[in-house]
């Protein structure tokens, strides 16, 4: 993992001292509330419904055990004993006091963590594939370049006051687990004629106008990355709309000007910017890369795993859903579900964080990851150790066997925390999870991604849920719209609206009708909900959702 250089450490100390002074200058009136707002946002501090919220970056989703323990410490010392892992590899604390925030930032700095540019109209913390460095299907580890982008985008003098926020994601694997096509810039590491480089995707985004990103450069040689990124963002900085915040994202700039125009502008600017880089960035990258080298995997006989798998049905169910193939056959990638049935998706208590840190230290070469699906990952665990890991997780309510299943729901904070919410989303997720758990249908249903947003801003990614749920406000009453067939992987698709929305009390029966229709229609257990939807189209699912309409036709 990346170790902060003296430069990084000194930068962070200076930055935190600046923020401490900004808080004081807000209080003494030197800074107006308007002026303070973007300054606190670029340091991760949001104002929510009930209190401030501090959003801390998990750099490209990677943590070590000391960092995880420090996150637990913050939860205990300055919050209510828990934190919330988000869809963008952040952790949010929902109850800090403004005067404590500078101390929280200093505590984070002790372990090389920060909240810089996790918010505001800046380049946000870059996200990456959460299985990076472990997945069997990986071409290259995206984290070294994500770290390079972190350094480049941090405090970039040109880009702290962009028209709107700007999100970059990187994947090094053909199976896109980083949702690169729904980012302002998505980078896919690719190889051409033996040379490595990037496919550059621009203008994706969810929110109120969901768009799938378009390829602006099919192959960008590795060494050209920073000037090319800088070209895109500087073209956007001048061209992006500042008159209407709903039209300010680069997806709208691309849509209004056309990808060809944007490409021409970017390529022209790139030619100039290339001359401003002399290879020092690539030399830094070369120093970063070895720090992400795989640990020395210890070969262990898998017998304990095989025995537990054969004899313990609870372990087997967990192993079947929560493990992913590791590039090392006697190891596995463990996904720890933060979606216990009935719990708040993505929440972890300080005790749970400490347990996960202990397990990482003992069994996982000191590494943890945070996924955009709001779960925690132990990327490298010897199969022999899995029974012990599972047993330990059970003691802390962390052994739920539901990764990728109907109760592994992404939900935004919604009405429970968010000032912009038009409906609840966490309670909806809890209801769905407990309901299908009680029906004991979850494992039979198989892979199914439900994603819930509490308003049109789409923080819960509902557009790319196989079943998406969007909570709206209709004349003071919550109303839930369902979208179908969305997909956030390399085949990214925006879901299709199924029809009129449902009142809160009608939503759960509607979801159940939908799922039961799928179970009847599928050709077998191998055909997932999404596959069946793609084969059959929306009609039979609509019929299940709106039986009255079908009955009216029949009458």
């Amino acid at each position: 993992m990346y170790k902060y250089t003296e430069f990084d450490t000194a930068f962070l100390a200076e930055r935190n001292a600046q923020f401490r002074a900004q808080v004081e200058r807000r209080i003494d009136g030197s800074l107006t509330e308007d002026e303070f707002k973007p300054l606190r946002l670029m340091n991760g501090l949001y104002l929510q419904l009930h209190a401030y919220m501090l959003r801390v970056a998990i750099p490209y989703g990677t943590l070590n055990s000391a960092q995880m323990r420090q996150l637990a410490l913050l939860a205990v010392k300055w919050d209510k004993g828990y934190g919330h892992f988000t869809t963008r590899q952040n952790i949010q604390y929902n109850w800090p006091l403004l005067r404590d925030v500078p101390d929280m930032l200093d505590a984070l700095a002790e372990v090389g963590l920060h909240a810089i540019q996790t918010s505001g109209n800046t380049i946000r913390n870059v996200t990456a594939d959460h299985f990076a460095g472990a997945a069997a299907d990986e071409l290259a580890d995206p984290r070294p370049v994500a770290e390079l982008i972190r350094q480049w985008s941090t405090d970039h003098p040109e880009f702290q006051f962009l028209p709107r926020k700007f999100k970059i994601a990187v994947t090094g694997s053909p199976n896109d687990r980083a949702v690169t096509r729904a980012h302002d810039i998505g980078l896919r590491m690719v190889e051409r004629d033996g040379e490595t480089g990037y496919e550059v995707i621009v203008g994706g985004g969810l929110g109120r106008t969901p768009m799938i990103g378009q390829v602006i450069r099919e192959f960008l040689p590795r060494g050209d990355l920073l000037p090319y990124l800088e070209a895109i963002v500087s073209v956007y900085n001048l061209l992006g709309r500042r008159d209407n915040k709903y039209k300010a994202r680069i997806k709208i700039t691309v849509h209004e000007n056309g990808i060809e125009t944007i490409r021409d502008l970017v390529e022209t600017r790139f030619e100039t910017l290339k001359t401003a880089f002399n290879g020092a960035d690539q030399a830094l990258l070369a120093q970063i890369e070895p720090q992400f080298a795989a640990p020395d995997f210890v070969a262990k006989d898998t017998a304990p795993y095989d025995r537990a798998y054969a004899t313990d049905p609870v372990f087997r169910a967990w192993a079947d859903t929560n493990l992913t193939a590791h590039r090392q056959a006697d190891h596995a990638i463990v996904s720890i579900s933060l979606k216990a049935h009935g719990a708040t998706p993505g929440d972890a208590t300080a005790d749970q964080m400490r347990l996960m840190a202990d397990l990482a230290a003992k069994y996982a070469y000191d590494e943890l990851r945070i996924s955009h699906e709001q779960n925690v990952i132990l990327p490298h665990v010897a199969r022999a150790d899995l029974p012990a890991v599972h047993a330990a997780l059970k003691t802390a309510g962390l052994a739920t066997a539901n990764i990728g299943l109907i109760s592994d729901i992404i939900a935004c904070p919604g009405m429970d925390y968010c000032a912009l919410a038009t409906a609840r989303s966490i309670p909806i997720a809890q209801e769905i999870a407990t309901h299908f758990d009680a029906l004991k249908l979850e494992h039979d249903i198989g892979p199914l991604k439900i994603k819930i947003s509490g308003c049109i801003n789409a923080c819960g990614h509902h557009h790319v849920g196989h079943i998406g749920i969007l909570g709206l406000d209709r004349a003071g009453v919550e109303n839930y719209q369902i979208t179908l067939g969305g997909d956030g992987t390399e085949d990214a698709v925006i879901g299709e609206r199924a029809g009129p929305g449902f009142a809160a009390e009608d939503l759960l029966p509607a979801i159940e009708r939908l799922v039961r229709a799928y179970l009847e229609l599928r050709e077998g257990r191998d055909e997932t909900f999404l596959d069946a939807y793609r084969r059959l189209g929306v009609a039979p699912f609509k019929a299940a959702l709106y039986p009255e309409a079908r009955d009216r036709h029949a009458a």
Partner: protein
Amino acid sequence: MTLNSTVIVRDQGFSSEDWQGAFTPLEEATAQTDALDMPANADPDTVALAGLRIIRIPFASFADGRGFTLARSLRLRGYTARLRASGHVIADQYAMARRAGFDEVEISAELAARQPEDQWLARANWQAHDYQARLRGTA
């Protein structure tokens, strides 16, 4: 210093206006113009630079960051004379302005009273802690 006068901020702190001539708006600029007011929506790649001794770029709001890219673009084109940011630029942006290529910032007396000299001097160390300088090999 009268209330409607402006303050010039440089690394050494506050000083008063020392550019004696008038600034010409871009649309009235001629080959003889030496001081140019370049609006935030100008195309930095086509503005004629020959003969200019100072360019002033306005910030209508501190939240509108176009000026930073304009400054960087002019420098990349080889403009080496004076470059000034003017208007609503806050002390917290001083380092960004300098790093983007501005030489100085012109602020109102009102803003200078609210954010006094020490708050600007606190950012005069803009050459330190600069990721861009590392990445561009200019540190």
